[in-house]
């Protein structure tokens, strides 16, 4: 009986400690975000650093994002056709594909892909620089590693993801067009016309872009923070890389729910 009580007590203590640890990390991450923003001046004064990181975060993620977008658009069109054809509303396929991509799938899936392709790479890179004392070496050279290493990667992520999400949606709509119009044979005019009548640039497109910017800030912050906060060992870096992908995925989906409630509640 006594053992049981201790066990339960320990369980609650464990929960308490985990919560406190989590909240402490959240506080540290917030402070870190402020530090990154404060140190960002030099990033924009020295575009060379930013361009290099844009290459790593953006250009190297292009292939996976473009291919995924194309395929997801094609699948959407095929599945959408199956449903729409029962109601004789196949012309609405353009609307279906465009709204799904622009509002939800573009920002969310591009964000998830970005987190696993670029986010994990950023975490691994910064974590490894910490492990091999490269960050400490910079600090001793009177160079702020947050300004020199972290800020360019953070901003490269923030700039890249909205562009990648837009490309994802564009390729997806093109994929939907390929399947819907070229393969199934829906009227092309109806496809584009219905889409344009139903999609509002401010309500749908702009909100989608805002979503992708929010995700970009979240994923980039998680990636640089996990790298900077990694335990400076090989295991520590690999654990941090995993955490980046998992945390990013959860945060993207949670934020997506919150943003959707705020943005699109009017039409539900």
């Amino acid at each position, binding site marked *: 009986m006594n053992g049981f009580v201790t066990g339960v007590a320990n369980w609650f203590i464990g929960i308490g400690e985990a919560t406190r640890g989590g909240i402490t990390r959240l506080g540290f991450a917030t402070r870190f975000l402020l530090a990154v923003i404060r140190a960002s001046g030099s990033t924009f004064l020295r575009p060379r650093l930013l*361009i*290099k990181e*844009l*290459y790593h975060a*953006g*250009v190297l993620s*292009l292939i996976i994002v473009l291919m995924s977008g194309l395929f997801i658009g094609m699948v959407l069109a095929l599945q959408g056709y199956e449903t729409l054809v029962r109601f004789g509303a196949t012309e609405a396929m353009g609307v279906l594909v*465009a709204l799904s991509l*622009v509002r939800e799938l573009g920002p969310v899936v591009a964000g998830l892909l970005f987190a696993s392709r670029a986010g994990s790479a950023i975490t691994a890179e910064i974590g490894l620089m910490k492990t091999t004392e490269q960050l400490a070496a910079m600090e001793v050279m009177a160079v702020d590693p947050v300004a020199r290493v972290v800020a360019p990667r953070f901003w490269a992520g923030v*700039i*890249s993801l*909205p*562009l*990648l999400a*837009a*490309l994802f*949606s*564009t390729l997806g*709509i093109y994929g939907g067009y390929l399947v819907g119009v070229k393969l199934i044979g829906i009227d092309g005019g109806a496809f*584009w016309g219905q*889409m*344009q*009548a139903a*999609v*509002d*640039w*401010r*309500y*749908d*497109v*702009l909100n*989608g*872009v805002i979503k992708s910017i929010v995700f970009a800030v979240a994923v980039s912050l998680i990636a640089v923070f996990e790298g900077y906060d990694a335990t400076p060992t090989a295991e520590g870096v690999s654990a941090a890389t995993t955490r980046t992908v998992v945390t990013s995925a959860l945060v993207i989906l949670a934020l997506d729910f919150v943003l959707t409630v705020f943005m699109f509640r*009017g*039409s539900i």
Partner: protein
Amino acid sequence: MNKRTVDLWVGIFVAIGIAALFFLALKVGNLLNFKEEKNGYEVMVRFDNIGNLKARAPVKSAGVVVGRVERIRLDPKTYEATVRIHLEKNFQFPKDTIATIFTSGLLGEQFVGLEAGGDSVMLQDEEWIKKSQSAIQIEKLISQFLFNQAQSGSNGAPANGNAPAAAGVKP
């Protein structure tokens, strides 16, 4: 990796990314039409019942989209729905225009239809459309139909006293 190659690729990436944003805004989201909308004007109309009408629903005249529903409010005094409609500048309507809520198809989305009257004075910005016809509620129609059936079955006389209340034209 050569600096120039990196620059080139980053340039391509940013350029196609921005192009994609423009594509979404212009080709998909029809940003160009919005400019005309912006120059339009807004009128208000009261309905007894708007059914399932929502903000941003199309406003049509003779089947042509001429504007959008901007905002829907309930008038706290009269308990009527106040609908604010945004109309494009190049579509002018007479003062005695009738606004009706229609449903596209049996179960489709609802929209506001405008039926032009014969007045020579045109509606101005922030003015009220005086005549409106509420949404047809299928539930009410069905219950009325059943009620009428039951009455005609027992009395042998059609009951027409309060039947067209929901769809009645407001003076």
